[in-house]
């Protein structure tokens, strides 16, 4: 499945519209998507066929994976080949099953690769041939947001695929945000830089949309995302050798940008509106020199809008990361964990864990594990709720807020860390000085679980509609209601 097959699937399900009115890549098209996120959480995917100055040359693809807040995994499930009404546990379990069976990619000839329908080489390279959108009015430039960055570890040959944003600087240069602990552009690039050699990279837009999931998954070091993408698809990815690099890229990609990152070179990146809902400032970042661009006819360019409440990047993260944390928690021995979710709109900032409380100090062990996890780099607050609280169904967010209201005694159940956490430049809780220092952020746990030492008499269970009426009466009510 490539982006075009996926768009066709959405169309069949009535979840895609095409817009032929002329819109500008400069904020206008994106503003429609932002409104779409707000009004219906991006349930209607949309393709702008007539982007001003680019008609017939390239298209913008909005809300391609954004889904209702009550079921943020809806389009993700469709990308995984599941029905669109697949429940969260179905999606989670299927994801975990496929996660255990990665498949190595296969390599095809350049002649069989649609991503090479058009080739721009050397002096002909022009990033402005594509409608990279201006996403927020305060942004430092036009951005590519949903794409896969490919780079190789110069020591081991391990190839990393990751989702990193890029800002267009000129017709053949880009720059991108690099945060300390991330694998691709940061750790690998630093290895190249230390040797004073250029770091080859490829930026891939499109291909199988499942690649966005593999690239967004928190994999162990040394694991190849290409294998996981194949595992998720249950069919090997088809790769083709890049034109100017020895890296391999998905053969059905929409656009492939090839080039090198030069050592000891920086350009200002940002500002860019981020998932926190706030604009993150400008800072010097590595520079990508583009040597070649290959692309399909009239390529589709997906994008996401940071900060616009519910977005495509949120839908991807809300489908992926909770499952990944759930898996890792079980590997780490926290078997009492029943489910993991993110609160809608908060991206990494509101992670919910439903867990039983099997022994004293369990909650604090879990908290310590969470606070030192990579996800804790971005996340500010965690909510732990009892294992029998339903955080798998469509009302998961309401159920968590109910627990925060009625199950958390502030002094007993809210746990704050010291100001000892890494502060990313994106963290809106810190002032400029704090962001520059890089430390001083804190974490907060809402422990809404039942204390271990409580007796049966102290435990009060909330009522559910199903407990209030006999099932026969409920069934009748449901059918009468439908007929009203």
């Amino acid at each position, binding site marked *: 499945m490539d982006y075009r097959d996926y768009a066709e699937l959405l169309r069949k399900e009535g979840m895609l519209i095409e817009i032929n009115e002329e819109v500008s890549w400069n904020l*206008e098209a994106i503003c*429609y998507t932002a409104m779409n996120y707000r009004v*219906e959480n991006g349930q209607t995917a949309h393709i702008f066929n007539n982007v001003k100055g680019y008609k017939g040359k390239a298209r913008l693809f909005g809300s391609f994976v954004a889904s209702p807040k009550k079921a943020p995994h809806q389009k993700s499930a469709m990308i995984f080949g599941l029905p669109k009404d697949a429940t969260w546990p179905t999606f989670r379990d299927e994801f975990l099953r496929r996660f255990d069976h990665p498949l190595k990619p296969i390599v095809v000839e350049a002649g069989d690769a649609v991503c090479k329908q058009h080739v721009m080489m050397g002096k002909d390279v022009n990033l402005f041939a594509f409608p990279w959108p201006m996403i927020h009015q305060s942004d430092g430039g036009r951005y590519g947001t949903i794409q896969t960055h490919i780079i190789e570890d110069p020591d081991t040959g391990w190839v990393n695929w990751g989702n990193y944003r890029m800002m267009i600087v000129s017709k053949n240069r880009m720059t991108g945000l690099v945060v300390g602990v991330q694998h691709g552009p940061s750790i690998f690039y630093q290895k190249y830089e230390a040797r004073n050699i250029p770091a080859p990279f490829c930026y891939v837009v499109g291909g199988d949309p499942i690649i966005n999931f593999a690239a967004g998954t928190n994999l162990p070091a040394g694991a190849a995302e290409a294998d996981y993408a194949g595992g998720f698809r249950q069919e090997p990815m088809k790769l083709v050798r890049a034109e100017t690099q020895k890296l391999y890229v998905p053969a059905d990609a929409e656009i492939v940008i090839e080039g090198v990152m030069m050592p000891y070179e920086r350009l200002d990146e940002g500002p860019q509106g981020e998932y926190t809902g706030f*604009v993150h400032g400008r800072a010097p970042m590595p520079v990508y020199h583009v040597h070649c661009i290959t692309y399909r006819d009239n390529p589709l360019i997906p994008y996401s809008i940071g900060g*616009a409440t519910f977005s495509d990047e949120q839908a991807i993260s809300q489908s992926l990361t909770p499952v990944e944390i759930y898996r890792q928690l079980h590997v780490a021995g926290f078997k009492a964990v029943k489910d993991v979710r993110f609160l809608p709109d908060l991206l990494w900032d509101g992670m919910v864990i439903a867990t039983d409380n099997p022994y004293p100090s369990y909650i604090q062990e879990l908290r310590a594990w969470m606070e030192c996890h990579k996800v804790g780099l971005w996340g500010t607050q965690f909510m732990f709720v009892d294992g029998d609280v339903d955080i798998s169904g469509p009302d998961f967010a309401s159920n968590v807020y109910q627990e925060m*209201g009625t199950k958390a005694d502030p002094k007993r159940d809210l746990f*704050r860390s010291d100001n000892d956490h890494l502060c990313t430049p994106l963290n809106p809780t810190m*002032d400029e000085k704090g962001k520059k220092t890089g430390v001083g952020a804190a974490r907060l746990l809402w422990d809404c679980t039942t204390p271990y030492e409580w007796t049966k008499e102290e435990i009060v269970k909330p009522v559910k509609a199903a407990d209030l009426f006999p099932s026969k009466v409920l069934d009748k009510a449901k059918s009468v209601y439908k007929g*009203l």
Partner: protein
Amino acid sequence: MRNLRVYMKALEESGHLKAVKGETDSNLEAAALTAQSYQEVGPALHFQNVKGYPKGFTLASGLFTGPGNLFLEKFKYWSRVCIAMGLDPMVTYDKFQGFLLERISHPIYPVQLNTGPAKQVIHKGADADLNALPFPRLHEKDGGRYGTLQTMIAQDLDSDWVVWENVRTMVLDKNRLVGHFPSHTHIAEIFAKYKAAKKPMPFCLSIGGPPMVTLTSFLPLGKGVSPAGVAGGLTLDPIELIKAETNSLFIPTEAEVVIEGEVSPKDTAPEGPYPEFWFYREAQPAPVFHVKAITHRKDPIIPFSVDGVKPSDTHNLMSLMISFELYNRLINVRNFPVKWVQMPLEFNLNFVIICSKPYFPGYVAWSSKYVLSQARHFGALYNKVVFVDDKTTSLHLEEPILFMIQRTHPNRGYHFWDQMPIGPNIRFASAEQKKKGYVSGLYIDTTWPMDWTPDDIPRRCNLEGAYPEEMVRKVAANYKKFGFKGTPVIFEEEFVPF
């Protein structure tokens, strides 16, 4: 609006009410159907054919409920009350609270009539039979049939102060009810006087009164304030009252049903079990009401609320009226010109959100602590306060939640309070805390620190922050034309100048 019927017609005309014509059992069926409508953000329901009762004896539910504020639904949780007040159902919440404040600041005192529809049918003494009215059985495990959306009328023992408060009652038998008076209510205070004097307390229960009478009975008024005057002010017309048959209290002439009688100072009976705040409250002894007369219209409509299911009419009205009274007190008692106050049902009424400009250093602490200090007056329902600045929309709960979690530093913005009374809606009090009688409290200051420079305060990049205002308006205007579904929403207060 003059009475419940006018209001129900207005609801029907605006698509907020549907008639249920098929036969419905008042035993659980009507309640289950209501619960279904609550959960699907459906219409209010008018059950026109109640099994086993004469034609014309009907039930209604969902009249004062709404969809909560966590998702952008077709209407707001205050929309139906706006319709009852004759306002645009889509006004923003700050305007809604402003209208309420204006109207309660100008009471209109009642007029007395000698006749009215509430007296169309009169049953006195042995004729008065509670079983002749279709009080619904609301949940499977309930102790009996309940009256929920009703106004209890009683007079102070040693003054002419009359209170109208919402009290739920359970039918015991043909002429006895049992009702629970929460300890913070005026009714409880007045009843304590009668009890001490060993005198029965005369009462009237107005069921299905004019919508503003119902609203007033959820409004925690000050001591000595005339509820009839407040209800008149809210209606913009005097409430028409008529003397009861068996005691000297006055009842609304436009009520659907009125039950008159005396609350015994000594008789008690178990009331409940009942799912009060989303969990079951076991049966507890409560005062017995001896019924002396029942008067009603020829075709009475009994409105009800299915508590235990969100968002029930009762809890939606509690959310609206308690947060309004906090808003009123912040402005009129403390001179804190706040913009709005919300008490979301999503947090089971345990959080109060104050929206205001932080006018001066310490303002957030003062206003938040003032709200904490008032908790006992409202049944100690809340012990957590969130303060958001005046650039926060009232139309979407997501915004305060975002600010409370994403932009607030836990060690700077979270302030703890040692002792707070234990509310009936919480489940976190341990046996030890219950013995001591207190839990703890919290207020969350989500505003930017006063000592931050403009450079420290990051720019917002939501829809209003990220795009020029003209563009957002153009997009909203073209949205449907482009083939998108749904209605665009703009958060007016959140536009950021570029």
